[in-house]
């Protein structure tokens, strides 16, 4: 996917120590499961395109939220600070959470990005995410025409 890897041999393998409700639906576990060497609660999952740095953040999230169903999470302040990071990191977290099917992390990170987009004009959104406009003027006009009330620029 063109994402630079950090030179960390252990980055690609995440030892999942039976964290309940987390990563249960991981998309690619079956391909990379290795025989359990220890207590039987440990599986190895290969995570291409996710660096050790992002993985560390994912683990940090999981460890903080592992007992959500029992005693509630670490609170909104912690969550808010957790996603107070650069765009690149947020998007890597989204991809990791999506790949590992970690619902809570996916919701938290997607909500952060959605909040950034809220009430922005078309040009502000393009500028915020550095998106190139690949519409022709006619195509863009046609899309705007479908709902002109939504544009205030």
């Amino acid at each position: 996917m063109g994402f630079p890897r950090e030179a960390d041999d252990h980055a690609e393998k995440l030892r999942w120590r039976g964290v309940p409700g987390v990563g249960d639906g991981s998309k690619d576990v079956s391909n990379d499961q290795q025989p359990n060497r220890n207590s039987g609660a440990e599986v190895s999952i290969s995570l291409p395109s996710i660096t050790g740095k992002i993985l560390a953040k994912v683990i940090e999230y999981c460890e903080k939220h592992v007992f959500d169903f029992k005693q509630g999470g670490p609170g909104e302040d912690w969550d808010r600070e957790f996603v107070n990071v650069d765009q690149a990191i947020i998007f890597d977290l989204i991809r990791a959470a999506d790949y590992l099917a970690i619902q809570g992390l996916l919701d938290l990170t997607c909500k952060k990005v959605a909040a950034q987009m809220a009430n922005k004009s078309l040009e502000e959104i393009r500028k915020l995410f550095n998106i190139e406009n690949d519409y022709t003027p006619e195509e863009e006009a046609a899309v705007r025409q479908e709902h002109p009330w939504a544009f205030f620029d």
Partner: protein
Amino acid sequence: MEANNSCEISRLPEDCLSRIISLTSLRDTCCCSAVSTSFLSAAIADVVWGNFLPTDIDNILSKIPNRPVFASKKDLYYHLSNHGVIVDDGKMSFRLDRSSSAKIYILSASRAVGIIWAWDPRYWQCVPNNNSMFSEVAQLIVVWWFDIFANFRCKNLSPKTKYGAYFIFKLEDDTEGFDRPLEASIYFHHVESHHRICLEARNGMSRQNPNNQIRYPQVRDDQWSEVEIGEFYNVGEEDDEVGVKVHETRELGPKRGLIFNGIEFRPKI
């Protein structure tokens, strides 16, 4: 979160981008569709537009005999907000408010509104009308006792929303008697509010004259005229009902030349 030089968001899988957009508002979603072609692709996904449809939309549509079928939820949303559907065996029309996605209903004058003397064809008749969504409208021949009323169950409407009730009509060329004000009342949560309305537009008169508080009509997008009967705040309680009345039963002058389409309940901004 700092803006970056590279376009990081383009590396997201499309369903993640759809998920993000589904967490924004209707207005933001429409804006996103014009950002770029890849944003458009994510913004038109069912997971996004499913959010803007009412949760009971399947229930509403299942009761329509020729239920319209659409390729996507976005197409369904646009049909419901631009055209609407006739429901309840022709008694009402249903559509969505385009920018807020709140529910809008129109009660058919000929099928779902009480009109005193409508049982006598000397006074009122139900006739087809090309400009109406309904199969028939109520045409006034002549009447002296003008008395129209309707009730509506608020659970059909969007909760936590302020609604207005509107009298939808047209005056014919030979109209008579509607240059004088009518009484309009709305009854909700044990409170009745009264206003005076006038169906004939006056040149230079704004919608509501602050001096004598008479409400005058406005022309709608569908070319019918409307005048506001009143407003209410729909909390969303199961048993709430709103009642509206438009009448002139005091002076009892002759009234003729009115085509009455229905009563609309739609959100007020």
